[in-house]
């Protein structure tokens, strides 16, 4: 991969690695005696590692000029592998967390292994590790294919991908050491937050630069979504993470906002992390891989416009539905609830647009598990957004809030929508990237599909049950007009569902492992065959260069 960099690019890679190593050194020295110092060591090693890697290939011959006639897909390939790696790690932690609620002593007598510390490893691992890497990898792919432009240079995409993973590593290792700001989905501390700003702004500029080089006059819908994802996440991240560190030698900081303003800012962020990270980005994915795989045109361009702007506008008002009946002023709750209800329309319009696109290709859905992943994802997207809008109604939320119903909703979205669309897209993408006709084993894709679907259904049904039972137990009154159940009785009542959830989660995890294996074997298969056999089929950038498109790409 490094051999494909030009000498000048190798030099900038070296400079960047040295810069990272240097910052690591500073963190190590300034933060000695603090967890910041440990993170300094990690950053230093990261920088030095990449420095060594680039140096070891420094004197290889330059890549031929001909590379410019091809898309630059190496970062996408690495991103796919990273995404699957994080999927297995993140979901393993998910199963562990799930098991702890049924068997609380199924852990070590050590801080790092306790529920409160590994839970964010799970959430960040799956959302940012698995989801984020998949988004970065596919966005690079989709962006180039739909603009017919090569990424403007070969170092920036690596900086984005590797820098982003450095952030993920800092985040996850930090949680295990107890470094957290407690803000859900924004837990990493100030220095990791700052680093992510650098990475993310670079990502945005890379995206924009490529768009500016496009050979297509119109920007395709997938790119609208990817762009909204990148932009809005940047704004959310910066505002919600404003904080004052206690010193530059300490990992600890205090959030700029407090109390009710902090709560609103946090859930403005938190809800829109869902909207723009877990929804907009993945809709971008859906808008490319689903029509590609189905071989069908998008059902309605005009519907795409309505959904896109509806989602972009309305989601941003909905965050206060996480704070119904709290000390947040009621007027904000009203806005959150009403916008959440209207939001259902563009959400269903997107899901409907995706499903209607499959008209004329249902036979493929039946036969092709990859396409079926995407179809089911669209269904779960519709389902979880309906559920979300329903739960955003104050009266419903009074029951569902604080209970496992929320967790069920989350995983209907996370497993059914986010993970399914990702797996579907990756199964489509992997053969294209490694230039083989098909994935190593379509049978295993089929196996994965059923594992994933049954795992999701078991998980979600278990949590619906437990959530609703929990909510009802808390508010049930006896004939005397006093509370019928104590809190601890509700804890006891959850146990069977927590066990069921662990089972469902294990099936889903097993599926992810099968996927990782299948992709790994596909890569090996491609390696063994050598590039020559099917090589050279990648699509040229220069318009009119005349080479054939790779089938299905």
């Amino acid at each position, binding site marked *: 991969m490094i051999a494909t960099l030009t000498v000048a690019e190798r030099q900038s890679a070296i400079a960047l690695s040295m810069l990272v190593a240097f910052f690591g050194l500073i963190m190590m020295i300034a933060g000695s005696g603090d967890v910041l110092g440990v993170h300094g060591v990690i950053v230093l090693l990261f920088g030095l590692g990449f420095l060594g890697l680039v140096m070891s290939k420094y004197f290889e011959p330059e890549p031929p000029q001909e590379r410019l006639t091809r898309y630059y897909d190496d970062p996408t390939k690495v991103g796919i592998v990273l995404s699957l790696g994080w999927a297995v790690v993140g979901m393993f932690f998910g199963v562990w967390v799930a098991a702890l609620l049924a068997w609380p002593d199924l852990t070590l007598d050590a*801080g790092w292994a306790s*529920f409160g510390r590994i*839970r964010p490893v799970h959430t960040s691992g799956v959302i940012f590790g698995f989801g984020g890497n998949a988004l970065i990898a596919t966005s690079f792919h989709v962006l180039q294919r739909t603009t017919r432009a090569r990424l403007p240079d070969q170092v920036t995409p690596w900086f984005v991908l590797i820098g982003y993973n450095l952030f993920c590593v800092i985040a996850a290792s930090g949680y295990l050491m107890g470094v957290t700001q*407690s803000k859900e989905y924004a837990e990493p501390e100030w220095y990791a937050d700052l680093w992510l700003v650098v990475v993310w702004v670079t990502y945005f500029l890379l995206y924009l630069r490529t768009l500016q080089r496009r050979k297509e006059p119109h920007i395709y819908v997938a790119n609208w979504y990817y762009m909204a994802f990148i932009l809005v996440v940047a704004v959310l991240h910066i505002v919600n993470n404003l904080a004052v560190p206690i010193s530059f030698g300490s990992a600890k900081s205090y959030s700029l906002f*407090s109390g*009710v303003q902090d709560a609103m800012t946090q859930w403005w962020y938190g809800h829109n992390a869902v909207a723009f990270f877990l929804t907009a980005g993945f809709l971008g994915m859906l808008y490319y891989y689903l029509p590609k795989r189905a071989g069908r045109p998008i059902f309605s361009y005009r519907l795409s416009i309505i959904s896109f702007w509806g989602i972009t506008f309305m989601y941003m008002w909905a965050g206060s539905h996480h704070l119904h009946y709290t000390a947040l002023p009621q007027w904000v709750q009203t*806005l959150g609830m009403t916008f959440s209800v209207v939001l259902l329309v563009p959400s269903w319009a997107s899901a409907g647009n995706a499903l209607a696109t499959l008209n004329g290709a249902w036979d493929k859905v039946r036969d092709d598990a990859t396409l079926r992943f995407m179809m089911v994802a669209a269904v779960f997207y519709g389902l979880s957004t309906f559920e979300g809008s329903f739960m955003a109604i104050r009266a419903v939320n009074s029951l569902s809030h604080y209970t496992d119903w929320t967790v069920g909703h989350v995983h209907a979205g996370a497993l059914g929508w986010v993970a399914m669309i990702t797996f579907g897209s990756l199964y489509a993408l992997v053969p294209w990237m490694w230039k083989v006709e098909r994935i190593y084993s379509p049978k295993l894709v089929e196996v994965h599909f059923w594992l994933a679907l049954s795992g999701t259904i078991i998980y979600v049904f278990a949590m619906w049950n437990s959530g609703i039972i929990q909510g009802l137990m808390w*508010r049930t009154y006896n004939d005397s007009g006093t509370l019928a159940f104590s809190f601890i009785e509700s804890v006891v009542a959850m146990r069977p569902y927590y066990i069921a959830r662990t089972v469902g989660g294990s099936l889903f995890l097993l599926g992810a492992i099968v996927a990782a294996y299948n992709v790994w074997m596909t890569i090996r298969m491609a390696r063994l065959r050598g590039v020559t056999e099917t090589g050279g089929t990648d699509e040229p950038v220069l318009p009119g260069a005349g080479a054939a498109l790779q089938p299905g790409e």
Partner: protein
Amino acid sequence: MREFFHRKLERNAIGFVLAIILVSGIGGFVEIAPLFTIHETVEDAPDMRVYTPLELAGRNIYTREGCYACHSQMIRTLRDEVERYGPYSLAVESKYDHPMLWGSKRTGPDIARLGGKYSDAWHVAHLINPRDVVPQSVMPKYGWLMRNELKTDDLGKHLAAQRAVGVPYTDAMIANASADAYGQASPDSPYASGLSERYGEATNVRAFDGEPGRLTEMDAVVAYLQILGRLTDAAHRQAAAAGK
């Protein structure tokens, strides 16, 4: 007409970016900015006090261990919550909480009004192994809190950073932060009196973990738990006034 406009827009990357920023920016602005300008958003409570250094350290450990993943600190305006947990939470009660710890999941009960509900000894036993005292509990064990000495040397910096974000700590509080933390958990030590001077007579000064000579993380967490809901009486006053 609109469609025509949109076809133009989708040919202009910068225009598209600006449109996204504009369209997505409105919601957050309209909902967040007025929370700083509308006075009644945060109730007045002259008796509201700040966390002592020991309580603040406890709060940081509470955050570190992720207790907020299972415990809410926000009693909603719903009958069953008020009857089970006490008066609904007011905004002012978390006025000095940077960040707030309202929580979003109740795997364990709400603890917004926990302060004073149980004894220090119970908390210590419960945190070391919840199942020793509550056999049905699914809460993790936190034995290391008793083993770890509390780090106090940088508490002054913590208070200074808190002041930078708006919590009214005085110079004296910042200067004496480490000593005050020690004094609060060692009632017979000379440091205890300065603490009451700075934070008020009502401050809990006890050997929270049962070992007055050693300042442990357990001291800090229990001191924090015992102050939950007791920084101000505003919620109780409001409930009493409404009851009449």
